[in-house]
């Protein structure tokens, strides 16, 4: 575990958004390592049109500037063909490159899932350690932009379930940069999930290259009354709740695992050993979620420390609705997180 998290960027460092931090990480790694390539739809800017070939940089602009800087040999626009994109990335990773494939929305795993979980994820194991597949799958995830049922899912539980995949969910710009650089250097396939609502959030981010190791949680707040574990866009919400409660004298650990696979279960267990209380906040659907996963780890390994039922604050077991009022009710809110903390504090 580490104390990095949101405050880790020193105040002297320039303020950058998550979008800028990821873009910078991509720039720096491509600069450093000629085997890093990028591929996906419009990642280089678009192609075959009459106007600018730099209209886009990925539809969310994350790869902006990379095409002009590194050329279309290394920043590769593709047709709409996700199976072929992920497959090409995996096969290239097996043969000397370090591809970063953009899946655009994580919801699109459905059309390329075989190449992710059955191919890329399994090569190392099923080929007896003789293949390495150093690739990153970048995708935007989560609700909040009224993008409706097929563009708003989280899906990290599905990816976390899969042996051979690593799953990264940065909650802030500092982590995003360090985790992206780590992801590119990692020798296993890494799913890097960028929450839509976080792209414009910012914090101090060093200009230098740095990495954040996988499987090291960040303690965003510290306190011994309750342990709150939250991921991605849920982290800022959990922090707000913790700060509000702190003003009342209730002090919570807010743990951001940063990677759900590998998971820093030690950090969580140690915290619960002290607090005896756990609230897990997960934007995903509840069944077989990472919330459930963390809850079960604690129920098995820190049982005797537990002084209250474990509370999971998640989305309901429904697709993401379009109507804004329903979508807002779908996502775990600060109010629901706060209530959960009060519940576990009030319990026997």
């Amino acid at each position, binding site marked *: 575990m580490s104390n990095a998290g949101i405050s880790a960027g020193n105040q002297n460092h320039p303020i950058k958004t998550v979008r800028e931090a990821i873009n910078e990480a991509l720039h720096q790694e491509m600069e450093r390592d000629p085997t890093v390539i990028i591929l996906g*739809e*419009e990642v280089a*800017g*678009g*192609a*075959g*049109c*009459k*106007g*600018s*070939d*730099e*209209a*886009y940089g990925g*539809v969310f602009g994350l790869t902006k500037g990379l095409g002009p800087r590194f050329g279309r040999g290394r920043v590769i*626009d*593709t*047709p*709409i*063909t*996700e*199976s*072929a994109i992920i497959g090409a990335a995996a096969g290239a990773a097996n043969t000397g490159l370090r591809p970063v494939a953009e899946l655009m929305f994580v*919801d*699109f795993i*459905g*059309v390329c899932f075989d190449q992710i979980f059955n191919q890329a994820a399994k090569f190392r194991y099923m080929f007896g350690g003789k293949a390495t597949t150093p690739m990153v799958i970048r995708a935007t995830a989560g609700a909040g*932009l*009224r*993008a*409706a*049922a*097929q*563009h708003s899912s989280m899906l990290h539980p599905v990816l976390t379930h899969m042996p051979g995949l690593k799953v990264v969910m940065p909650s802030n710009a500092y982590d995003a940069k360090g985790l992206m650089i780590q992801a590119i250097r990692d020798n296993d396939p890494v799913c890097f999930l960028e929450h839509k609502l976080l792209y414009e959030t910012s914090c101090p981010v060093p200009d230098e290259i740095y990495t954040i190791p996988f499987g090291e949680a960040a303690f965003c707040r510290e306190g011994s009354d309750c342990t709150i574990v939250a991921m991605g866009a849920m982290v800022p919400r959990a922090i707000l709740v913790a700060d509000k409660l702190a003003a009342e004298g209730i002090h919570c650990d807010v743990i951001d695992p940063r990677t759900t696979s590998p998971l820093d279960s030690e950090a969580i267990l140690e915290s619960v050993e002290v607090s005896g209380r756990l609230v897990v906040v997960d934007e995903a659907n*509840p*069944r077989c979620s990472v919330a459930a996963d963390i809850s079960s780890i604690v129920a098995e390994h820190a049982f005797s420390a537990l002084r209250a039922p474990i509370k999971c604050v998640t989305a*309901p*077991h*429904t*697709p993401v*609705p*379009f*109507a*804004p*009022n*329903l979508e807002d*009710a*779908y996502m775990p809110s600060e109010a629901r997180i706060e209530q959960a903390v009060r519940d576990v504090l009030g319990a026997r």
Partner: protein
Amino acid sequence: MKYSKQLLVEAYKTMTTIRQFEERMIKEFMAGNIPGFVHTYDGQEAVGVGVCMHLSDEDIIGSTHRGHGHCIAKGCDIELMILEIMGKSGGLCKGKGGSMHIADMDKGMLGANAIVGGGPPLVNGAALSMKTLGKPDVAVSFSGDGSSNQGTVMEALNLAGVLDLPHFFVFENNHLAEGTGDEYAVSGGIAERVRAFDIPCDKVDGTDFFAVYEASKKAIKHCRSGKGPYGIEADVIRYDGHFIGDPQAYRGEGELEYLREHKDCLKIFRARVTSEGWMSDTELDELDQHAADAIEKGVQRGLAAPQPSADELYSDVYSSY
């Protein structure tokens, strides 16, 4: 006169409704009255209308992320569409679907689809129902040039060919997929690809309502008569951005202006019917006005409508756990 007045009126009424509907959606979106991602169909009206005029409520269409025009052409109520697009109570999908997920089973509209290539496999299913239940109906899928590269679409073509399904594949080639041109992304050609599955496929000028209408007539007759699937590739233009708000930097200097001047299916229709003496400008203007009024009414209703009730979050799915 080759076409009945009724047909011409119907065609223009539907096309101008779609055009104005989309223009209004852009306005309302910009005004903050529509949440989310919206892809407008303006520019492609002649395709949706030229195809759907051959269809009854029993026939089925499957649409894309760019689905408003298909909905209107298939007879969906525009007020209920507006409610849906605004995320309001009473919308076609209770406000839970939005622009990218409008469906209307009563009208044979199987749904927009926010996954590129998601539709054609499903439309095969509708065609399979028709075949299995011995109905003379036809199922129509709409796909884009970008979509033609998705494996699901190619699998759907093959399965339709293997099972001789009454599936009419309509490819609307507007030469753009977001900011990627078909010239870059489609190796080979769309119609050639369809034909390689042993499915006849015609190329048609998608800015010419009459060309689409005739090609569809032939294709749909083929499908209804049990001869299996048929395809068309319609050469068409996108009149606006990929989504509302798209700055369209991938457009060439003056490209959009040129297309709007020379490739606007509404202008082309108007020029044809007036020059042939089939309809007068006044008649056409009146139809424009009727459409505008209907849309205005729908927008006002949409703006005034309440949000879905909070418990809708949990309905329509087995949600206990």
